[in-house]
């Protein structure tokens, strides 16, 4: 049920990235024409010549229409052309920072520049009327990306603080499928094992199909010297990760591999 709700939520969040209604712009204005041309552009495959040329026309006729810059930048980011993508997206941010800063932060995160990701998100959350924004794929709120980015920069306490605040202020019905897991893994990395286990137990009520959850839960039990429970969790992590149809976390921050689990099981046998 939770997964169905997630899919519905995902579809809703994706619609947030679709363009606004062209009729909100005055008839005959550059923005109206740019908006209509952008509609035509997205009828072609993303990144195709026809699509990019229509975005260029839209930008030429309505240079203040931010969505055209944003949409034109997307294939560059997705295909490894970071500089070109930034060059275009920065124009959208200059026009509408509240709408597009999170998108740039997301790509800074994807391209492993955690400092720039943090800078953008801190700037975003200080903006008047900043609202909660999800990742483009809708898997988690950008607050979790901020928390993970702090942790990646070595500031786990700050990361925990940000995600704790988000989780505390979000009802269990609105929580995403991996939020408790993310907080639990940061607790575990921070050697707050009891808090980690408590958070993973909450996670298992939301989504019990993530191998990573069992792995980090195993690490937390190991941290508390509870070898029996640690082994049970590592065994479960192995079963889950060997399942081809397993749940894969998007933007995990700290990904778990089969070899990590096997190493832990081996280490338990040795000690």
């Amino acid at each position, binding site marked *: 049920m939770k997964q169905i709700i997630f899919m519905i939520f995902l579809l809703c969040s994706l619609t947030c990235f679709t363009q606004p209604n062209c009729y909100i712009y005055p008839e005959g204005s550059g923005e109206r024409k740019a908006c209509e041309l952008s509609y035509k552009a997205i009828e072609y*495959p993303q*990144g*195709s*010549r026809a699509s*990019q*040329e229509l975005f*260029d026309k839209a930008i030429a006729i309505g240079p203040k229409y931010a969505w055209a810059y944003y949409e034109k930048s997307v*294939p*560059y980011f*997705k*295909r*490894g*052309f*970071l*500089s070109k993508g*930034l060059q275009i997206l920065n124009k959208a941010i200059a026009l509408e920072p509240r709408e597009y800063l999170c998108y740039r932060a997301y790509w*800074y995160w994807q*391209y*492993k*520049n955690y*400092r*720039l990701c943090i800078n953008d998100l801190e700037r975003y959350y200080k903006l008047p009327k900043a609202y909660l924004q999800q990742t483009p794929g809708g898997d988690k709120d950008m607050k979790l990306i901020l928390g993970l980015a702090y942790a990646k920069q070595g500031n786990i306490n700050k990361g925990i603080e940000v995600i704790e605040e988000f989780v505390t202020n979000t009802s269990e019905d609105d929580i995403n499928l991996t939020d408790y897991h993310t907080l639990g893994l940061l607790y575990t990395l921070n050697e707050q094992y009891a808090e980690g286990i408590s958070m993973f137990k909450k996670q298992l009520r939301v989504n019990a199909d993530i191998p990573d959850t069992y792995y980090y839960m195993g690490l937390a039990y190991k941290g508390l010297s509870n070898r029996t429970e640690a082994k049970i969790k590592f065994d479960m992590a192995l079963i889950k990760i060997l399942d081809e149809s397993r749940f894969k976390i998007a933007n995990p921050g700290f*990904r778990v*591999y089969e*070899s990590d689990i096997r190493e832990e099981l081996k280490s338990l046998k040795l000690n």
Partner: protein
Amino acid sequence: MRFIIFLILLCGCADSDSKRILYPDQIGDTIFDAELDDPNFQFCNAEQVLHKRNLIKYQNGTKGLEKDIRKKYIAKQEFQAFSGYIIVRFAINCNNQIGRLRLEILDNNFKSTSAPDGLETHIRDSFSSLNAWQHPVYKDQDYDGYSFYTLKFTNGKLELI
């Protein structure tokens, strides 16, 4: 009159040429460059090279790739001057061969910069010699495809991938 027709034709040609130069069929399509590319690398179907990065796998995932790159990377003295990022774009053909590598060198603020002599070639050679790629399989069909990875360096040391 003939001169005017000639001029009109010339303008028409120039216009279509400039359009052709502006964008490839798909953003990221990488045409052969004799100075950079191995002529032995061929796409199985150059008309249908996928831009679906997630479909290109490496044996043992990113961790396996990171392990193999670390084995190949030698942090020479002259590389210590470099802190920043190298984005490596490449193609994998349906025979799991790598080719069409293109590198983007960026500083820590993601501004374009240059790498010390030899670093770019070293990274290009390291990637070119990786041999555990798995080409894209989409709807039970084998494909060629494009992908990329980001490498981060601090004082010439490879930090993360």
